[in-house]
């Protein structure tokens, strides 16, 4: 019993360490390898924009471009191409553009496949108000951390009798503990002061009760971080009235899905929201969460902000804070100036012009 808890804390310390330090295997002459997955639709152009901006910022990143269109593996199961998997396993860090989910291709959604392949258990979305992109909500600065593997999205559904369907929500001790630990580690690494667990344990007594218990247990090991609990409906109610009262929110899958999109809506939508997925074994894939926008693909009209901010998140994750701040400042300043903005931000410039402006600012900041 005691040995178990000692082992658990050892494991979490090692894991915490792994999260803080970049993977050593890809550390060569200061350059770190990142697997770049451009994606579909506007994916390639926004990825190119990000690569250009990183070059201008002289970030020590070596990009390895890979395609993740599903292929049928030996056992008949769908999987991502082996070279993509090998590249990710080696570099441990990935940046992904939007992926198309084909309707009748027979294989599950690509995002789901990636999640299963790398056991991406935590979805992290920092939502910070962008100065210069006006929304009714100002001063938003919160992070939603969502458990990404189980909960309501386990996909286990049955038709009991004709006309009665049951869908199973699965909550396990291990997954709950893992996400709670990640949340507190994130809080510590990013100097955040409080973690709030979102739940509906008044109705779902056992499942959300278990999630809450695990969060409380993990909170004991992080006495420097304030831990609070709040009902899902109370969060929704308070979030739209005063979002500044929240810091880090940790929650199971469905609530996380809804709340992270709600918070994205507060700061201006999916076109400006970064997102990161953290997996076991130190893997982390950062992505833009908007769609592929096939109607404007290839026309140099896309807004690379979401992917850029996700890439900035990636830099911070890798410990390259200086470059991260530089690029973020350049991006925010460009938006604040309002002179060169893409159509969705209210301007009329092209993607390449927007990118060039950010590159110029990054170089000026040097």
């Amino acid at each position, binding site marked *: 019993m005691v040995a178990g808890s000692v082992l658990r804390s050892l494991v979490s310390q090692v894991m915490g360490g792994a999260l803080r330090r970049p993977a050593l295997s890809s550390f060569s002459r200061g350059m770190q390898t990142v697997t770049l997955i451009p994606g579909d639709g506007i994916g390639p152009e926004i990825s190119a924009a990000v690569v250009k901006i990183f070059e201008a910022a002289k970030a020590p990143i070596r990009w390895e471009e890979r395609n993740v269109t599903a292929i049928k593996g030996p056992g008949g199961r769908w999987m991502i191409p082996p070279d993509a998997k090998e590249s990710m396993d080696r570099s441990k860090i990935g940046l992904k553009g939007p992926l198309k989910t084909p309707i009748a291709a027979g294989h599950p959604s690509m995002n789901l496949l990636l999640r299963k392949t790398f056991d991406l258990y935590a979805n992290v979305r920092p939502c910070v108000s962008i100065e210069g992109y006006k*929304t*009714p*909500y100002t001063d938003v600065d919160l992070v939603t951390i969502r458990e990404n593997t189980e909960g*309501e*999205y386990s*996909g286990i*559904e*049955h*038709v009991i009798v*004709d*006309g*009665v*369907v*049951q*869908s*199973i*929500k*699965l*909550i*396990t*001790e*291990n997954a709950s503990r893992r996400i709670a630990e990640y949340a507190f580690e994130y809080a510590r690494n990013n100097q955040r002061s409080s973690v709030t667990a979102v739940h*509906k*344990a*008044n*109705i*779902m*007594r*056992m*499942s959300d*009760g*278990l999630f*809450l218990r695990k969060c409380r247990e993990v909170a004991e090991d992080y006495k420097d971080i304030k831990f609070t609990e709040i009902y*899902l*409906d*109370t969060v*929704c*109610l*308070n*979030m*739209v*009235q005063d979002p500044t009262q929240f810091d880090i929110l940790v929650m199971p899958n*469905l609530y996380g*899905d*809804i*709340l*992270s*999109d*709600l918070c*994205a*809506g*507060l700061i*201006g*939508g*999916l076109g400006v929201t970064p997102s990161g997925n953290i997996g076991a074994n130190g893997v982390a894939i950062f992505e833009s969460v908007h769609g592929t926008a096939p109607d404007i693909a290839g026309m140099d009209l896309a807004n690379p902000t979401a992917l850029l901010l996700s890439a900035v998140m990636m830099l911070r994750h890798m410990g390259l804070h200086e470059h991260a701040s530089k690029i973020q400042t350049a991006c925010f300043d460009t938006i604040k100036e309002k002179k060169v903005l893409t159509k969705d931000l209210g301007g009329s410039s092209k993607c390449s012009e927007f990118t060039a402006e950010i590159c110029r600012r990054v170089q000026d900041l040097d």
Partner: protein
Amino acid sequence: MAAHSAALSFSKIINPLWGRHLGNTVKVFGTTLTSNRNKTFNCPPPAKYGGRHTVTLIPGDGIGPELLNHVREVFRFSCVPVDFEVVNVNSALEAEDDINNAITAICRNGVALKGNIETNHTMPPSVKSRNNLLRTSLDLYANVMHCQSLPGVQTRHKNIDIMIIRENTEGEYSSLEHESVSGVVESLKIITRNNSLRIAEYAFQLAREKGRRRVTAVHKANIMKLADGLFLQCCREVASGFPDITFDSMIVDNTTMQLVSKPHQFDVMVMPNLYGNVVSNVCAGLVGGPGLVPGANYGRDYAVFETATRNTGKSVAGKNIANPTAMLLASCMMLDHLKLYDYASLIRNAVLTTMNETRLHTADLGGQGTTSEVVQSIMRIIQSKGQLTAEF
């Protein structure tokens, strides 16, 4: 007439007793006993004696008791012909006797006004939420909330007018959970064709009655293909019977995002239980907070009125700073249900006029007013209308 009312009362006795033990079957059985389904929804109970109605009052916890006292005060002052039968429910007890008494009282009276009963989730999981028990036992299948921006209240978005109809008895709130293996808990979300059809039918009927143009179904059928897929399919089926009303659907996460950026695109929304919880709280927040919006729970035979966001408000209880608007507007909805329309409009107008006065705003609206000041102002406005009133 006598046979009809006898059948009605017979079913009232049978349903609550059997409802909780036999599940779906009793709903089928109960239907065959009662009169035809073409009756208008929410037929109020007949006035009991001398033109006065009896309504069950459940004070609940937190701010419930004080707000309901204010409701009684206003009713007594305005000489509303309603008598309240108070039933207390102690949320600290594990036994279900209290809530069963309350349910029996509501069966007897047909209408109730309630505060929120706290659920202490440190108690063992076998102690279910009392509010949920009440809703499922009485089969209050539709939770209706009308979110309207009030002119006197400052909010980020103006002129919001959304009706939210939420399935109130099944979905994620079935309270069916078990620990299959140690450390692994399963919680069942149940969606049935009957209930989905019923709530969709209710939503479209209400939309037609109120002259609304569009009904939006909120779901997550891309992930929960069978469960929410069934719900969506039922909504579509019902929609085909209402060609004058536009029907569309939206995924719940996109819905919340749209609500905070462009809330004016929504008209009437219908959805399963949990999404209803999220969306109704977001909308309540958009129009000014939990203190302003009333909610109603309708079943075939019963109606229970409460605040829309069902908060206990423990942090503001007993301090005379709670906002009585939501509870008073809920009581007006109850008066409308009892067909006492004149009293309902009288009190409602008084409440809304008072809300326009920024000076009287309570703490939740950013003001300094106290609950009693607000209530006094309401009573003063009622008196000025020249109707019969009691003494102050």
